[in-house]
């Protein structure tokens, strides 16, 4: 698998580590146990196109949002997460 890092260009799978589904959002501090349980444990586990968190730890250390098909491994989009490249926020 090759992932096109938006900062570095196309790189080999070995430079990246995988976290998982990017859809679950960390609940607010007061959301309660059920909401956090859902965030930490439950997964849609999509068979198809999924948005995922990958870390380019063997490269520029950016966390990326990768849109990938879990049936074919085809990658259709890669974008930086909110805090990757934050120095350009507001520019």
């Amino acid at each position, binding site marked *: 698998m090759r992932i096109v890092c938006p900062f570095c260009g196309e790189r080999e799978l070995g430079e990246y580590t995988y976290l998982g589904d990017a859809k679950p959002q960390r609940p607010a501090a007061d959301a309660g146990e059920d909401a956090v349980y859902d965030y930490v444990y439950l997964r849609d586990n999509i068979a198809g196109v999924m948005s995922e968190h990958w870390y380019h*730890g063997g490269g520029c250390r950016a966390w990326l949002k990768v849109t990938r098909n879990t049936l074919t491994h085809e990658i259709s989009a890669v974008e930086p997460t909110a805090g990757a490249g934050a120095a350009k*926020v507001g520019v």
Partner: protein
Amino acid sequence: MAEFSWDVRSPLDRALVVGPYGSTGDAGVSLTEIRNFDLIQVMARRGKAAETAKAAKARFGVAAPETPKAVGTTDATLIWSGPDQFLVLSKGGKHTIEALAPVFAGSASLSDQSHARALISISGAKARMALAKLSSIDLHPDVFPVGAAAATSMDHTSVTLWRGRDRAEAVFSLLVFATFAESLWNTTLDAAAEYGVAIAHAADLG
């Protein structure tokens, strides 16, 4: 009070043996360690990319790279190392963290990496062949021309690789983490041995 000497010792001090290595005949690969340098990581603060760029321009006379490139100035090389960040590589004492701190005050955070890396220059007719055993990135001159840089990995270890000015042939520079340096050095020698290697070290950046 006792007299103390504060010798600096490169992480390759023991492993590097000057001279030929591997196959005899004309060396296909030259490996030269450069030992005396300052290396400062500059990380723009949130929303401060423009200010950081301005400060860099003022200090170095060139724009700091915003994409994977290495930009040479008269006394420093600015090497992209990730989004919002670059490394300032210079001859020891030129652009120290103390010297750069006021330049980037308020716009960027600085981290001294001068002792965190070993710097190796790789050249020779077979340099690309040897590097192909270590690096998964495409070093074809059309894809990785003079001035190209990459934050990448070799042997599962993070490195910074760039192509500086050619000296008759392509010259690649490699920054590797100090504690991995000896290991990666040995791996590099293994990769290059079949082409014949000329090993050297130099005090300063050429």
